[in-house]
């Protein structure tokens, strides 16, 4: 019998004021002084109304990725009954830390002043949060630690500010009138951090989430890269950023721009459905017993036909069970699910015994991750 593990506290940090759609380009900057022709269209499609950035309207950094993670971690620990010196492990996830090396967990550990803890850094895109969480969950299940702090933090604004695009003078972005693939994520992503405290006992007062299972499937063996930084996006170019003579060459060629191959994006929804049905077949996912579905899904303005098929196949989740705060807090990538869980527990009044299914897809190279939680009281019931 493995040790049960609970999420006993949550916290977040969203930097600066909430930024409305028409202010986004003020913060990120208009590339070469020219307003984007795609911004309004992409914002309408993703439905996000407000988000936060760790840079100001002069594109100057106001808070680092490390600092956001530390602030979220502190808020989480402020709400916890366990003091931070009794937390044995720190797992941190992000798409990109402040330094390429060493791993972000070292910096966050220093910021939080956690002495002699075991650390884990997970680096990918959205699903890196689930990778860090799974590492920490398993460590507690195996009695390696009694408590672990898991922080997911994301700061894409520094990749998306106008200066990045202006410096890419020989990129596809500079050459085309419209470069949808390179501009798409500029109007999708924003900054923020979320933190979860895991313990082997529920919190003594109030509610905790028991983690029942976590699963993930990656499809990189079959599908090409869909979301990335590090290559120019030119069909004939196979160098990645460090293969250029200088980093300046790489930047000029657009190899440091964040890019999404939009044509491949449909696959992430379908593969998400595949994993979901697979979990039904394996008996882990019982949709009729799910009370809340928390899904890191960045656009709900279209309803893919495949969701109708899930209904036909008897495993759909009714719309009223879906819950997200993406539209007000922004798409914060890896941090998104933790930020969602934090607001959910504080505002949605979950009841003991309710079951929560979480889904975090990552389009990078098509990773799909799932988690099942049960709301429990201080006795773990």
């Amino acid at each position, binding site marked *: 019998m493995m040790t049960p593990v609970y999420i006993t506290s949550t916290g977040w940090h969203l930097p600066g004021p909430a930024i409305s759609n028409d202010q986004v380009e003020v913060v990120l900057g208009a590339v070469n002084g020219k307003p984007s022709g795609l911004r309004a269209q992409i914002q309408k499609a993703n439905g996000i109304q407000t988000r936060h950035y760790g840079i100001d309207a002069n594109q100057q950094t106001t808070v680092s990725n490390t600092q956001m993670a530390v602030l979220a971690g502190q808020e989480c620990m402020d709400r916890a009954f366990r003091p931070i010196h009794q937390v044995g492990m720190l797992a941190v996830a992000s798409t990109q830390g402040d330094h390429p090396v060493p791993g972000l967990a070292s910096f966050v550990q220093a910021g939080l002043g956690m002495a002699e803890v075991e650390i884990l850094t997970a680096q990918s895109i959205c699903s890196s949060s689930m990778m860090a969480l799974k590492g920490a969950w398993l460590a507690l299940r195996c009695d390696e630690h009694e408590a672990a702090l898991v922080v997911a933090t994301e700061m894409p604004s520094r990749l998306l500010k106008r200066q990045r695009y202006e410096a890419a003078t020989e990129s596809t972005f500079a050459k085309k009138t419209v470069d949808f693939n390179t501009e798409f994520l500029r109007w999708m992503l924003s900054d923020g951090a979320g933190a979860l405290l895991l313990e082997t006992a529920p919190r003594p007062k109030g509610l905790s989430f028991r983690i029942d299972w976590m699963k993930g499937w990656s499809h990189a063996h079959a599908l*090409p890269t869909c979301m990335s930084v590090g290559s120019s996006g030119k069909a004939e170019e196979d160098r990645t950023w460090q293969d250029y003579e200088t980093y300046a060459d790489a930047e000029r060629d657009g190899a440091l721009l964040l890019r999404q191959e939009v*044509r491949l994006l449909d696959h992430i929804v*379908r593969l998400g459905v*595949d994993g979901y049905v697979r979990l039904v077949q394996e008996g882990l996912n019982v949709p009729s017993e799910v009370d809340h579905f928390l899904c890191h899904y960045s656009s*709900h*303005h279209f*309803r893919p036909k495949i969701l109708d098929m899930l209904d036909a196949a*008897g*495993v759909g989740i009714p719309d009223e069970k879906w819950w997200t705060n993406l*539209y007000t807090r922004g798409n914060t990538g890896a941090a998104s699910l933790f930020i969602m869980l934090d607001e959910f527990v504080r505002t949605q009044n979950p009841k003991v015994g309710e079951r929560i299914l979480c889904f975090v897809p990552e389009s990078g190279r098509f990773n799909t991750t799932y988690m099942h939680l049960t709301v429990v009281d201080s006795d773990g019931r």
Partner: protein
Amino acid sequence: MDGKIEIDGVPVKEAAEAIGANDVPDLGDVAQDALRRLLRVWIGFERDLVTVPLLRRLDLGTYTLADHRRLLVNLRQQVVEGSRWIARAASSMDRDHSELRSMILRHAVDEHRDYTMLEQDYVNAGGELEAILNRGKNVGSEAFHAFMMQRASQPNPVDMLGAMWIIEGLGERMATGWATRMEELCEREGITRFMTYHGANDDDHMQRFYAMLDEVCVDVHVVERIEMTAKVVARLYRLQLEELEDE
């Protein structure tokens, strides 16, 4: 905005109803199991199609008119023989499966001459009619056709539903995903009418398909057989697209 999902200010549930998304067929448990399996086979098929070199060129934007002619030449040989296995499957259905037989026959009527459309697309893409008429099947088409004829020859081959699931799904994918992109990259119109024609037919087919699935799925053995046929068809169809011979 308290976290509830809205589309342009309308809660998602109402919005879904407005677009008719809630028109869900009422399938029995066994048919639902079959549909779940078929969904997974389809998603895997679609994912793996991305690895087919010719289709990858669609994503990369390097697909040319010569690629298109090559695709049509290779597809035609299977399509032209498609009506044979459809007719065979229909005649293998006994009186207890007459509804299914009717559905298959309707399907045969819909499709048994559509290779002429494909041939015309080929000519419009700059090919010689003689060249497409006088080709044999490629390695994948040969295997695909042989398997279909073998299954269709079994008594009451209800697993052909698994084959139709993949083939119809592909028809829709061609119509909605490939055709426009192909015409755009080849900078020529009138070369994908075979593909768009298939997609246009499919909404009706879907409802009929659900009804048939519900009727034939009496136990898990049937479901397993349908799933297996869908898997083999998916693999052989991809093989056909991987084994493209030159024009």
